[in-house]
């Protein structure tokens, strides 16, 4: 179980002594959907690595369904930035699916941040990805139309799952699709639209053949290359559409799909 964690640490440049110590002190925790990470463990004292499952970052409010801000998927750290401890006063992490977490005491983690220079550089590069995602999320939530927000959120998760499968070897996913194991209501709250509107969009995308909906299981398969291409277009052009309608969204996906098939 700890294999993925160690592979990531090696990838980030931690030295052998450090890897051995991390492996020795690591603790496992299993969370069920709805468990709050901070309630379940003394999270400020641990570096948390998500080995499997989905964790959502949400603002601390009693009503859990309307305040999801961002998702963390497997093979990422939750509180890797020691300067960001302050943030826990405002947000909390909540398990969306069954999760397996690996915890390393912050004391050990900080020790290696201070002495292992390659590890610091590796971790810094790793966290830039996240700050990029935050920038994109902030920009789109503020200025994009609902359809645009939904398309980008889905494309974005396709990318996250793609990266995950690349790093772990493609055995977890079939070639062309990825599965988002998130309920519609959670996803819609992150995107900032109502669940009804979100489902209307999913239905239209499914009718056009760009996703497969499995309603009862709340899983939708994603046609990966299509969605990755959509995200690349946004990154390349910086386009944030504030007036895109559902029809235009489906047309856009269709055009990308045809281009991909032609080229």
């Amino acid at each position, binding site marked *: 179980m700890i294999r993925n964690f160690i592979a990531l640490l090696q990838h980030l440049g931690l030295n052998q002594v450090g890897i051995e110590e991390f492996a020795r002190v690591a603790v496992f925790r299993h969370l069920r959907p709805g468990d709050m990470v901070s309630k379940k463990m003394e999270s400020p004292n641990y570096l948390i690595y998500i080995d499997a499952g989905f964790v959502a*970052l949400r*603002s*601390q*409010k*009693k009503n859990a369904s*309307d*305040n999801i*801000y961002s998702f963390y998927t497997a093979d990422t750290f939750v509180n890797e*930035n*020691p*300067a*960001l*401890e*302050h*943030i826990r*006063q*405002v*947000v909390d992490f909540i398990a969306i699916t069954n999760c397996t977490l690996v915890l390393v005491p912050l*004391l050990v983690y*900080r*020790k290696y*941040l*201070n002495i292992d*220079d390659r590890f*610091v*550089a590796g*971790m*810094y*590069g790793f*966290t*830039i*990805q*996240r*700050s*990029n995602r*935050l*920038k*994109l*999320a*902030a*920009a789109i*939530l*503020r*200025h994009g139309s609902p359809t645009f927000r939904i398309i980008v959120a889905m494309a974005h998760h396709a990318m996250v799952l793609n990266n995950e499968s690349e790093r772990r070897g493609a055995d977890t996913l079939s070639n062309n699709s990825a599965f988002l194991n998130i309920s519609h209501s959670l996803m819609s709250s992150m995107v*900032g639209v109502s669940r009804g509107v979100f489902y209307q969009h999913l239905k239209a995308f499914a009718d056009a053949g760009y996703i497969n909906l499995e309603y009862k299981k709340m899983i939708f398969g994603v046609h990966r290359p299509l969605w990755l291409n959509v995200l*690349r277009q*946004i*990154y*390349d*052009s*910086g*386009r*944030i559409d*504030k007036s895109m309608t559902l029809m235009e969204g489906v047309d856009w996906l269709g055009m990308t799909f045809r281009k991909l098939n032609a080229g």
Partner: protein
Amino acid sequence: MRKTKDGYVDKDGMCLEIFARSGLHDKDGISLSRQASVIYLFKNQSLADVIEDVESNVYCIYSGLLSVNIREGEGRELYYLSKGSWFGEDWAMQQPSIPFRYIATRQCTLVALKTNEFRNLINNNAKFVRYMWEVSAIWSWRAIEMSIVLKHSEADFRIFFGLFNLAELINSSNQYQETSDLQCDSNSVDLPLTHAQLARYCRASRARTTSLLGQLRKEGLVDLSYGVVTILNLSAWRIVLHTWRNQDNPWYKLSGEELIKLLRISMLRQMNSDVVNWGYQPFSFSARFHQT
């Protein structure tokens, strides 16, 4: 600090000041300044107007205030960067980045470092990496908090929080540099923004922003002049926001009057701070970062 005869800081001086903060020796700072270039932006000028290939450099703001906008349309500010902030590390580290527009809100001086120089620094200087990590942490922390507030709160609280967010941004940049072009001491901060710009940042209407600012002015919490909003009594604002952060269930729905009442109470508490200990510690990233 190195200055030229007519009182301006020269390029070496700027680089020394910037890199000294990031834990580099003066010697390295001087040698880096040979590769660095200085860019001046006038008010409302976009970075892309001055530099053809924006993504070939990483930038640090030496003075002024820069707004980060989405590509198309006018007045689409996402967030602001003030002196001491770096940007461009995402494309320098070869991460996919969104082509934002960087526009000077007021006259800006930027120091630009070539991306390969920056990568060399990251690979060879752990102190610099720690510093950059800390700076980007400040940014992402502020951005997350602001986005959450924008998503969930009522207009009055959004404006209130937006004001505080910007005041802290400008105030914290003071700890990164000796010089200050924006008037700023420990308890008051100048925001060089018009009401309309502020309203766009807080996603509120201009009229509502002006009316809340008027109320705050009556209470002596802000001062208004043409194109500038001065936040007074920053410590009182901090106490209110600190209490807000520590709530299990933060109040997003507060109205302007309730907020002003809270600010008034915290001003009174401050006068009596020996009696009531609010436990507010000025927030230091460095102390937390190096704590082992």
